[in-house]
């Protein structure tokens, strides 16, 4: 059994006898020792989607699914297409990619994992750490080299995140995909 807060997007839990894939999970501290996890779930048997909240310590049985290494190939509206080493193509719906969508971009070479249920890809997992280029940010703040002062930066996908104030347009940054947070500037 795993607690609600241990589940990540893309994983599947057995809830009340049905397999539910977690499309998005947000942890929030509530008060004292209480915490809640808001999840977007999709029932793998009937396709029904729901938003739900759990106490962070609610327990569920994880369902272990098959995984295959894939890379992103192209977007064929409304499907995202990934390919494995044998050139098999896998189509994934946008709703199944919600948690990783901010980091899916043309030309990306990250080794991803396609997660299967009933021979169908139900989600894509990115590596824990990826590199992306900043396409826009305000000019650097002179003198700040501590990395503690943050500013907003935009990626090619349009996704915005907080980065150190010394980062500039064209810089590559390392991102933790589990939290979606900036980790560091990648030295050229």
């Amino acid at each position, binding site marked *: 059994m795993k607690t609600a807060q241990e589940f990540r997007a893309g994983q599947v839990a057995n809830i009340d006898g049905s397999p539910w894939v977690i499309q998005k999970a947000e942890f*929030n501290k509530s*008060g*004292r020792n*209480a915490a*809640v996890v808001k999840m977007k779930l999709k029932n793998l048997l009937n396709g029904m989607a729901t938003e739900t*909240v759990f*106490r962070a310590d609610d327990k569920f049985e994880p369902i272990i699914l098959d995984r295959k290494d894939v890379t992103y190939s192209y977007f064929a509206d409304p499907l995202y297409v990934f390919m494995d080493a044998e050139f098999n193509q896998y189509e994934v719906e946008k709703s199944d990619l919600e948690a990783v969508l901010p980091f899916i971009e043309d030309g990306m070479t990250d080794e991803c994992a396609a997660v299967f249920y009933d021979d169908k890809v139900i989600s894509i997992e990115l590596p824990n750490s990826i590199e992306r280029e900043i396409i826009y940010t305000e000019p650097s703040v002179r003198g700040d080299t501590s990395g503690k002062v943050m500013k907003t930066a935009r990626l090619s996908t349009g996704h915005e995140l907080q980065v150190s104030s010394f980062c500039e347009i064209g810089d590559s940054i390392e991102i933790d995909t589990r939290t979606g947070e900036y980790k560091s500037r990648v030295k050229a």
Partner: protein
Amino acid sequence: MRATWDIFCRVIDNFGDIGVTWRLARQLSQEHNFSVRLWVDDLQAFQRICPAVAMQVDWQTIEGVQIARWYDEFVVTADLVSADVVIEAFACQLPESYIDLMRSKQKVLWLNLEYLTAESWAAECHALPSLQAGGLQKYFFFPGFTEQTGGLLREAKLLDLRDALQRTELRAQFLATLDVQVKADERLISLFSYANPSLLGWFEALSSDSKINHLLVLQGPALALLAQYFELPELHGKQIYQRGNLKVQVLPYIQQEDFDRLLWSCDFNCVRGEDSFVRAQWAAKPFVWQIYPQQEDVHLDKLAAFLSIYNKGLSSDVKAVLEDAWLAWNTAGDIGRAWPQLIKHEESLQKHAIQWSAQQRKLPDLVTKLACFYQDWL
């Protein structure tokens, strides 16, 4: 037939949990005519805020609410049935045997009443279902300050009673019941706080103020600090301690209705936790909130979230001093330095407190929202 409600309250510490659930239970019973049973694991804490509570009995009825002692080992007797609506207050864990009772009943609405926060995620989680085994229907209910949340506890007559007290002789009469006599040129302040060593600096600031500050101290850790400040082993009720322009009077444990009257009567309130925080807002008086401290300082996010909505409408300089004072109060900062800056804006803060209370009054209260949620669910 009246719908039945069970409310489960586990007293973690202090009086916030029982304070909120007792108000909730009474209001559900008295204003919405539900049959309400309140399960409490600590009758001693309950008795402090409601002297009518008898310690020796397992079942009793007070003000129309059935009170049940909640033992760690929850025994399901043959005549015990689940209520139509079950509230687990502040994520207290319901007894497994009671959950079995809920499963055996055809239709039960299970609500997890959460802590109050102004953080935006609470509105996003409010009223969402929580999938449960065995077909049980559970929802999260978040109190809050906006239309998108569950609202705040506010009894139907509360603000009329407040207005009556604040505008008439009732204030002086009430204060007299506490042996408090306050002169027109004195500032009356209530203090209800968690441990906070930097209060010593605040006492000094009150003492050196140009105006007399009459401080009414409720039972709690501040008493030990005041004893230290006056260099005494302890402070006693019925006596006034004075240094400079600081006058201190210790109050006994008081019941909820009197606590409200106290907040309405004071010129400034220092409150803590959740229940008194909400009551201070209904008092429509300037206040400072000591938030329940949490690990990794997550309570400071909660504090900032509230300030960001409470501060709207204040001028930038008043906003700045208010934030500075509240932060000092909650981070063992220099309250002695922040206080004179804050109190300079007493008039603006007073006007703002009235506006805030009036603004919140326009929203449906928590119990009305709960009752509507139940009706919609049916």
